[in-house]
């Protein structure tokens, strides 16, 4: 299927490629994650055609680009990335694609983390940034719905730069999206009020932004560091803490190991909640707003069943 689409694109490219009219039809945007794709679609509307590289249920930090990703970038006028060292592999891919405009600082390059206040900054970033004041904080900033204002602003700026003719349309798209977002945000906040006093344990620390927005208390994580499995005393500490504070919820993402989470939950009688951190990772999370709808419903459900 994908092959067919690419073949078709190539065929169209061969026929219409050189004519200037085609490029203006729909602006092709490549994003690293599905979340950024959804937000790009919200800003671009019918004027853009957005593609994301990392499949929904993959760990975006460990994605390995494929040859066709280079091909996808060839026809692209704008790229949108997460930044904050989350999608480091993207730099080499952009290098391989060889389009100057798409690289860092180019006209068609958007780092969606621009102007975001990263939380839990502990070191200096390893990725190529602007050199200074670019810490390596927790990269899961899109999980605060408020941060979508910054992200869509960055996308809006990028789209208006490469397509100034439609800048007005992009802006009104974004405004409409933000109106919907703020209504939804009110709903989510109201629903999650009941979880405010409930301590939660998660597998991986993807949740500081989410926790801050909805005032949730993630007290500990099963992973010591990303990718490092738990040690006996860490696990014992968590179980002790969970019993002491009567933790009823353990959060896991769909791609994380079921075994460890179930083990801890079984020891403490807590229930496991599977939450998506990306659009498309769970059924029903078809776009950015639906992602929060699903997660909020899952949390409320698990808390209510107690």
């Amino acid at each position, binding site marked *: 299927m994908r092959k067919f689409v690419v073949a078709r694109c190539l065929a169209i490219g061969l026929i219409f490629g050189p004519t200037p009219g085609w490029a203006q039809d729909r602006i092709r945007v490549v994003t690293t994650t599905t979340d950024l794709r959804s937000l790009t679609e919200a800003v671009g509307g019918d004027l853009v055609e957005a593609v994301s590289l990392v*499949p*929904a*249920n*993959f*760990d975006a930090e460990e994605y390995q680009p*494929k040859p066709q990703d280079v091909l996808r970038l060839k026809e692209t006028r704008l790229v949108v990335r997460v930044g904050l060292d989350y999608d480091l592999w993207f730099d080499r891919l952009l290098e391989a694609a060889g389009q100057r405009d798409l690289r860092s600082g180019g006209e068609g390059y958007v780092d969606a983390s621009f102007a975001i*206040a*990263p*939380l*839990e*900054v*502990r*070191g*200096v970033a390893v990725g190529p940034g602007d050199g*200074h*004041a*670019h*810490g*390596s*904080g927790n990269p899961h900033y899109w999980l605060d719905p*408020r941060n979508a204002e910054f992200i869509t602003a960055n996308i809006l700026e990028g789209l208006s730069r490469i397509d100034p003719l439609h800048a007005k349309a992009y802006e009104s798209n974004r405004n409409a999206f933000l109106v919907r977002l703020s209504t939804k945000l009110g709903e989510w906040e109201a629903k999650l009020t009941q979880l*405010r006093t409930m301590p939660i344990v998660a597998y991986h620390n993807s949740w*500081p932004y989410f*926790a*801050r927005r909805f*005032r*949730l*208390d993630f007290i500990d994580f099963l992973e010591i560091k990303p990718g*490092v*499995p*738990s*040690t*006996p*005393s*860490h*696990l*014992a500490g968590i*179980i*002790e803490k969970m019993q002491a504070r009567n933790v009823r919820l353990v959060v896991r993402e*769909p*791609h*994380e*190991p*079921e*075994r*460890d989470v179930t*083990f801890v939950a079984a*020891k403490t009688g807590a229930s496991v909640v599977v939450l998506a951190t990306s659009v*498309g990772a769970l059924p029903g999370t078809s776009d950015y707003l639906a992602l929060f709808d699903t997660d909020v419903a899952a949390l409320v459900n698990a808390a209510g069943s107690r």
Partner: protein
Amino acid sequence: MIEAIGFLWPAFLVAVCLVGIHTYFGIQVLARNVIFVDLALAQIAALGATVAFMLGHGAQSLATYGYSLSFTLLAAVLLAFTRAWAVRVPQEALIGVIYVVAAAASIVLIDRAPQGAEHLKQILTGNILTSGLSDIAVIVPLYLAVGLVHFLLRHRLAKSPSLFWEFVFYATFGMVVTSSVALAGVLLVFSFLIIPAAIGVMFASTLPSQLAIGWVAGILTSAAGFAASFAFDLPTGAAIVCAFGAALALAGLIYPFVRGNRVAAIRTSFDTARWVIAAGIAGSAIMLLVAPRADLPLLDLLEQAVPSLRQLYFTKAEAAAYQDAVETAERHRLAAEQLIEQERRSRTQGEALDETTVQRISSFLKSYAEMRKGEQFVMGEVRARARERIRWVASLALLAIALLIAPLPWRRLSRVGMNTAALALRTDRESEVRSPRTPQEG
């Protein structure tokens, strides 16, 4: 602490079961010279699970286990044939090919999966820490059944059976490996398979005594691994694998004392130790001379263990600058941690921080990280300059120490030197004696 032991013991029991069956299979595998066959079988089982997942079965479902098992049986047929095919190409090469192709095929398949199948990695990276009594209830009957089959058929399954019995061997082995890898992961299962068996084969020649030695060694080593994982707070599986590596090294060291000439063994190991230490010191000395700014692992380690060593070559000013940088860096780290904690607490306690405050905390954190990096640069620079200053003296001294430690045959060298001198003298005298004669001959 008691709680940790409370949930470590089921995992330890699982390890004991795994050692039990794998030591036996390990001895067989060593005899057949097909060391990596378990990796190939485990990978094939994972490929089967991947296919099942692609077809829409759950990761832990019966259907998935069925697919894994049928793929393993197919692989057993292939493996049984490899010995017949391995005329020109060693069997181990074919096994390696099966392994890499199965691994690559599952990567290709996972990539095509509609919703991604990242958690299939779990099949390859089980975690022994979170295994428990429910797992024992599954593996003990399976291992007992396999063990019984092998005991009853022990004459047919011996070293070089016919094609069918070879298939039976690989099929039963595949069943064991499929379940154990899902429990403990590839690395740990490989260690359970090879290392106790190797220790057994080293010290005994009949199967029962090999098994007994392997079991004792395997269980003791597993216990040591669990203890180390608990005491030093290490990931359990990896700690046990390292413990097994150490056990094999220890067995290698003990072997010559048990089986060979004891005096020679002691002398050899003593000499080896001296060579290793001398080479380490000499290498550090040369590195210090050639590249005093580079990482010097031995010296760095020593300095870390005994910080007062720095006083030996730092001037007062350097020591003060270094200490200041250390303290400042630590202060920055603590300040950053405090800010992070303050922000974390504000998420749920008291009034929520407004966006501007969060922005400010964020930029403070970035600055602290930058400043800490700066202090670390200062530490490195101070040390590098001090080392540059003393490199000649220090490296010559280190070289001298290395020469003293190295087990060079000083006595023989000096004797050889004296002999050469004596020889030279004698030839001189001889030529003196001979020379007056020459004219008479002429």
